């Protein structure tokens, strides 16, 4: 991760917006230091610099994924639903799993 010291805490934010309901839902994971290498690998395997693709169809989800170190966002990507596959999908799934239950859940 650019500029991230290995011992520094970081957080990953996933925001899902759109869909026919237009509801936003977000998940935030702040990995424990002992799990940081695994998360760093997940983050670094994502193509952060890939060009965005225009949305196709309608009412698909739109995703915003950010990695924060302190108050600074060191990575930010906006993805169409179709782009959330491969490493992005792994990252999103792990963040959703690690996020505290109840963030947007009934």
């Amino acid at each position, binding site marked *: 991760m650019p500029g991230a010291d290995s011992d520094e805490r970081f957080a990953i934010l996933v*925001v899902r*917006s*759109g*869909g*026919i*309901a*237009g*509801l*936003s839902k977000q998940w935030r994971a702040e990995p424990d230091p002992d799990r940081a290498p695994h998360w760093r690998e997940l983050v670094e395997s994502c193509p952060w610099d890939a060009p965005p693709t*225009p*949305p*196709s*169809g*309608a*009412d*698909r*989800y*739109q995703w*915003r994924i950010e990695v924060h170190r302190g108050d600074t966002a060191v990575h930010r990507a*906006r993805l169409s*639903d179709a782009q959330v596959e491969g490493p992005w999908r792994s990252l999103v799934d792990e963040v959703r799993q690690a996020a505290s239950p109840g963030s*947007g*859940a*009934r």
Partner: protein
Amino acid sequence: MTPGIVPPFLLDRLASTDDPRLARAAAAARKTLAMPRPPRPTRRRLRLSIDGDALVAEAVPAPDRVISDAGNTENLPGRRVRSEDEPASGDSAVDEAYEGLGATYDFFWDAFARDGIDAAGGSLLATVHFGDDYDNAFWNGERMVFGDGDGDVFVGFTRSLSVIAHELGHGVTEAAGGLEYQGQSGALNESLSDVFGALAEQHHRGERADEASWLIGAGIFAAAVQGEALRSMKAPGTAYDDDVLGKDPQPGHMRDYVETDDDNGGVHINSGIPNRAFFLLATALGGFAWERAGLIWYRTLTAGTLSPTADFAAFARATLAAATTEYGEESEEVAAVRAAWAGVGVEEDAGS
């Protein structure tokens, strides 16, 4: 023309381009357009109705519905489970989708003499049981896809005819040339689908404008959710107010326009503004909303002159032009269209 995978309007645009980088594509498009197409048989059915003392029998086009089941995976199209003329499957999502597509098809035919999504009798394709606890329904460019909901917030997206017609409406908008799914043009795309969703439901129920709920997605929230629907065209911002979901964020006037980068620039939020304009028009004119208000919006979409990047003001101007063509400059309809846009703070003169 028999529909191919590339829509005719796109072929026309490609064929007429003089961009040297697209010379080969333009030549191919011209060749494709010039090819004779075999006539495709159109499904027809006999419809009986009573007009005064007379029994009227007419042959009208019929839909060609194909419902598939994704089996709670995200693989499309899934397994085909009910096709046209087949009996009910016993699976409520399958049968609701089938019936909902049929009611939406009937609405488009009766109101606008439109034969399905492509206006040429093409199949209406839908997939149900998409994903695991999937809280969404969408149009993927070729089919309508419905999740089952998670059971806590949503209890299934095929329960609402306005949702099914909303998705089919996206197909109609795309086939008509499309509205870019971003910012104001995206909000217009969304609003048109809500208009078609509400009108299909009103047509199915035989409701007049002043009798209708003007709700989109009534019946898809779980009982615990404090809300009656996804959106209200009559009173944007009032459809739900829930501890978990928060409050319906839709504005109903330009002064409350929401600037955001999420949701493709707030396409499901700012659609409240043109939604309310349509409601104001429909209730000012009275009667069945699809007969005049709906026709003006439909003609605006399908005239072939609407830019895919139209903003609210450009769309308002286009609706005025469509109403003028249909009813005349001094008509009640034109005055009502102008008043409707003024009522939501959209100035059709802006940017002209």
